């Protein structure tokens, strides 16, 4: 944690070993709540990547065009990975809460109405259910019994992938809420380019809609357009806001006015010492 700006009520930063510093930060760091949420977010996205791409292997998604025996075989091969992987997902998906709270806080810190923060908070809290947990439940049930009627297993397969890719509105409207807040904001919490990037992210949710319609080709749920290009945008967008939130926390002064510029702020602090 690079910003140990000591506030009056915090005791002097002791230095010492890594562990001591960590303990000091947990006990006294003025921004500990924000850093907590930020680290939870980073850990969450890392776990998300590992669980979805490596453990359960549901990303990149298999094809919707497979015939029934192939789908059954896929569930067979991934039986243990799916069940344990999604077990971990069920254990940790509550980490969305601090993440969404931090995103809502960024809007709360802006010079805009509280409507934005609360709308975003509720929308994204809702989003995790159809967008992640229902998918995980459908996958778990699909993998649960290998001797189930194959037709039903295919039904679970469709249910899982379509609920995952096909949950669009909450992310679409959520991104728009955030970007409008950024454009209206006068406190400089986020740069304007991130708002425009948010528009790109919102449009990916439009682009994914044909996944509900096509079973093969570029627009299917594993297609070049509906999955690959969208994934690139999503990863860039997520990486951008992780970095920008970090910068926001570093600049945070717990006031209500514009967030100070990091370069401009360095001078007075030095002068005060």
């Amino acid at each position, binding site marked *: 944690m690079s910003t140990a700006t000591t506030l009056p009520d915090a005791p002097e930063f002791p230095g010492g070993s890594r562990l001591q510093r960590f303990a000091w930060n947990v006990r006294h760091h003025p921004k500990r709540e924000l850093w907590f949420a930020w680290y939870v977010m980073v850990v969450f996205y890392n776990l998300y990547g590992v669980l979805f791409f490596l453990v359960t292997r549901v990303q990149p998604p298999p094809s919707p065009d497979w015939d029934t025996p192939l789908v059954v075989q896929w569930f067979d091969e991934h039986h243990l990975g799916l069940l344990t992987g999604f077990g971990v997902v069920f254990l940790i998906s509550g980490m969305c809460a601090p993440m969404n709270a931090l995103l809502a806080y960024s809007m709360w810190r802006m010079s805009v109405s509280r409507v934005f923060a609360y709308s975003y908070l509720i929308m994204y809290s809702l989003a995790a259910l159809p967008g992640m947990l229902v998918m995980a439940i459908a996958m778990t049930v699909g993998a649960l019994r290998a001797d189930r009627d194959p037709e039903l297993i295919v039904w679970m397969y469709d249910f899982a992938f379509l609920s995952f890719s096909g949950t669009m509105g909450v992310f679409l409207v959520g991104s728009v809420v955030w970007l409008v807040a950024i454009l209206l904001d006068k406190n400089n919490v986020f740069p304007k380019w991130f708002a425009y990037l948010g528009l790109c992210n919102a449009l990916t949710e439009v682009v994914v809609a044909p996944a509900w319609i096509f079973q093969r*080709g570029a627009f299917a749920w594993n297609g070049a357009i509906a999955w690959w*290009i969208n994934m690139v*945008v999503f990863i860039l967008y997520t990486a951008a806001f992780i970095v920008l939130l970090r910068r926001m926390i570093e600049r945070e002064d717990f006031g209500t006015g514009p967030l100070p510029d990091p370069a401009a702020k360095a001078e007075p602090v030095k002068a005060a010492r």
Partner: protein
Amino acid sequence: MTNLAESEHVTVPPRRVPGQPDMWLFVLFEAMLFTGYFSVYLALRTQNEDLFLQSQADLDLRVGVFNTIVLLSSSWAVARCVRAARAGQYRSAMTFAAATVGFGVVFAIFKVGEWIHEIRLGNTFTSSEFFQHYYFLTSLHLIHVLIGFIVLGVLIYQLRSPLRRSQELVETCATYWHTVDFLWVMIFAMLYIVR
């Protein structure tokens, strides 16, 4: 940074980025995404050329050309609007902004008319691979046009009151609208001309 470089030759008018640099990032990024869509389209097209050509024959080039010229005109109008606003001629700027909206509306009407025509011919989103791409690209573009109307609304709102009139914002809005234009120029070439 640029100011330092420019201060050496004082005679040249200062070079500056039109509008927010942030918007330029969006322009290039969004156009890159479209390039991705075009690449997928072109690559798939070569795999099944005859089918694509067969479907493509149902498109009416005249509508495409007309729509392209309409959008080019709208782009011209918004460029005039920016110049007028810069010169302080806000009345004229408002006229050109209104003209831009007018051209945009004509474009949208003809676009929807073309869709209706194609659907009557039996060419729908699910009927052939070419028309998948056709409807996908044109509707995504039309969404950009609709967002463009909001952006132009912001522009007109800026121009209306002497209290606002931020030239930077006017240029930012215009930059967005030009993006709508040049994306269409590329979509037009991709869908109507490419063989």
